[in-house]
């Protein structure tokens, strides 16, 4: 009901947005922007921002696809979806002449295969999916790999993120495959391995994996790097581990859907988010990694040296970023549905 209700509210907002002049409809991941960034933008530009959130890429995609790219002005898909949505004509080209702050972005994260030349997407944040441990209950040094989560002693204890690609990443990496594999046999092996993991799974968390950790409901499981940084501000016992098979890495980018009704405002918003001081605030509040080098330079020494946010070189050398898997998506989704049914 929550999602339908939110969806209905969005439709209402979207329809009113067609009439108002200075509006902007932003559809972003839950807890993925500092609130003050939005209010400051509104104050500065007089643009009224309608802000709503989603819990995973698939839900966002379903809604944008259903409305053929209408109703939203800025959305923040992960790389593999940028590639998919761009090919399906759901995204429009970004006018880079309107982005004065584009120069702030590091070349390391630009011009990638999912969007050559970044015609359709501007990187917002990147981060990793690794293992979270509550050091008060479990000695973090005993957990070094994804494979450790398969240990029988964690029966009914684990948290997994409610994200098909991330959960398969674990099993694919554990078996030595690429996280972007489209080989049905490899995906099947990963699926069969995940079936063995299911008895250990207590919960699939969609919105904020840090919360069950902080509430003491789980002590071990998958978690996003930024969630750890945020959690540590309240509970330093929550530790982050880069599994030795390789953590999951992803980039989320600003994009403008084809049906956006406030294209000029969307560009203004993206350019605003690329400002160094805004990028700085984003890292400070969310704890994810920014591709914005100018923002990085403004960060305190502690943040810049925080390995959770900016992983050490040996981790990065193994890093494999998520990509579109094309038609294999269907295979993943089919297995995913079965896994969540406990099969």
């Amino acid at each position, binding site marked *: 009901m929550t*999602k339908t209700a939110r969806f209905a509210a969005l439709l209402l907002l979207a329809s009113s947005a067609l009439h108002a002049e200075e509006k902007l409809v932003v559809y972003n991941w839950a807890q993925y922007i500092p609130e003050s960034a939005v209010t400051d933008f509104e104050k500065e530009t007089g643009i009224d921002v309608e802000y709503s959130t989603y819990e995973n890429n698939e839900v966002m995609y379903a809604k944008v696809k259903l409305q053929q790219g209408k109703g939203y002005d800025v959305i923040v898909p992960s790389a593999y979806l940028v590639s998919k949505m761009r090919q*399906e004509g759901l995204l429009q080209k970004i006018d880079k002449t309107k982005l004065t702050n584009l120069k702030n972005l590091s070349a390391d994260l630009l011009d990638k295969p999912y969007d050559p030349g970044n015609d359709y997407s501007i990187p917002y944040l990147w981060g990793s999916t690794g293992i979270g441990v509550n050091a008060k209950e479990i000695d973090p040094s005993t957990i070094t790999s994804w494979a450790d989560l398969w240990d029988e002693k964690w029966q*009914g204890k684990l948290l997994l993120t409610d994200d098909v690609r991330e959960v398969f990443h674990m099993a694919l990496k554990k078996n030595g495959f690429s996280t972007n594999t489209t080989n049905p046999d490899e995906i099947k092996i990963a699926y069969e391995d995940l079936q063995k993991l299911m008895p250990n799974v207590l919960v699939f968390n969609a919105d904020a994996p840090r919360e069950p950790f902080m*509430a003491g409901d789980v002590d071990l499981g998958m978690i996003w790097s930024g969630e750890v940084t945020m959690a540590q501000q309240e509970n330093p016992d929550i530790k982050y581990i880069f599994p030795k098979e390789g953590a999951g890495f992803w980039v989320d980018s600003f994009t403008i859907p084809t049906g956006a009704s406030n294209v000029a405002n969307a560009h203004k918003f993206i350019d605003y988010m690329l400002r160094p001081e805004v990028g700085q605030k984003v890292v400070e509040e969310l704890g994810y990694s920014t591709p914005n080098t100018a923002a990085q330079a403004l960060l305190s020494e502690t943040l810049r040296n925080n390995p959770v946010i900016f992983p050490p070189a040996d981790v990065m050398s193994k890093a494999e970023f998520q990509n579109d898997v094309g038609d294999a998506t269907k295979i993943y*989704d089919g297995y*995913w549905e079965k896994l*969540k*049914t*406990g099969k």
Partner: protein
Amino acid sequence: MKVLNFRRVAIVLTLVWLGLFVLVPHVLVVLTSVMSPDPQHLAVWPVTLASWERLFEPVYAEVFWRSLWLSTLTTAICLVLGYPFAYIVAKLPGVWRGVLLFLMIVPFWTNSLIRTYAIKLILGNKGLVNAALLGAGLVDEPLQLLYTPFAVVFGLVYVLLPFMVLPLVSSFDKLDGTLLEAARDLGAAFWARFRLIIVPLTMPGIIAGSLMVFLPAMGMFYVADLLGGAKNLLLGNIIKNQFLVVRDWPFGAAFSVALIVIMAGLLWLYFLANQRINRQGGLDDEGL
């Protein structure tokens, strides 16, 4: 003349409203359920029964039975809790009866999603229940209550209890006290009066309440998502995932229609039962 016009307008408006917002969407859902899934366009022709066949795959049969079991359990618990409560409410003088019903309704002014989040806090490892149990020394380590089927049933009972109580209260209201007095005069003990008079005469309320709990319980995916750890526990979870995550709309639609058919079947049974009960003990009861 004027009255007639008003009536006509009212009827036409209602029909248009129902047609537009009830009939058309349902026809669309039924149509979608016999189309072919397509990742690009959600659903395309040609017509196929493939989605319907998939309903009988073992995986989904399991969800179906689990869903049925959790919903039945929820209904049974609601009945056991709601029946005595409804009896007490119906027997109380006007003011108190109003107060009790009011107290039961008040929490429902808060969005059920927020109340479900609150249940998370109550059932968590460091929640109220576990803190109390640990404090009283009844357990040594926190019980795993959250993210279990128990939590889901707890949440469903909490959200749906009023739907059981309200029809029961109205049934108890209609219960003729003189029948009970007569039964007592004729020597019927409490159990006999309860079994032979109270239960049969409140049966319409029992059935109506059970339906109003059972049917929504099968579909409340957000309760299972939040309290059951987002595993596919209820039919509602499957439907939601088919529409939002897997994007197999025909299959999601087939599931929805199947749920509607079950619902219709149960309502039909209710109708039959009601008819039978009305005949029984009435003037036209041939058995009397």
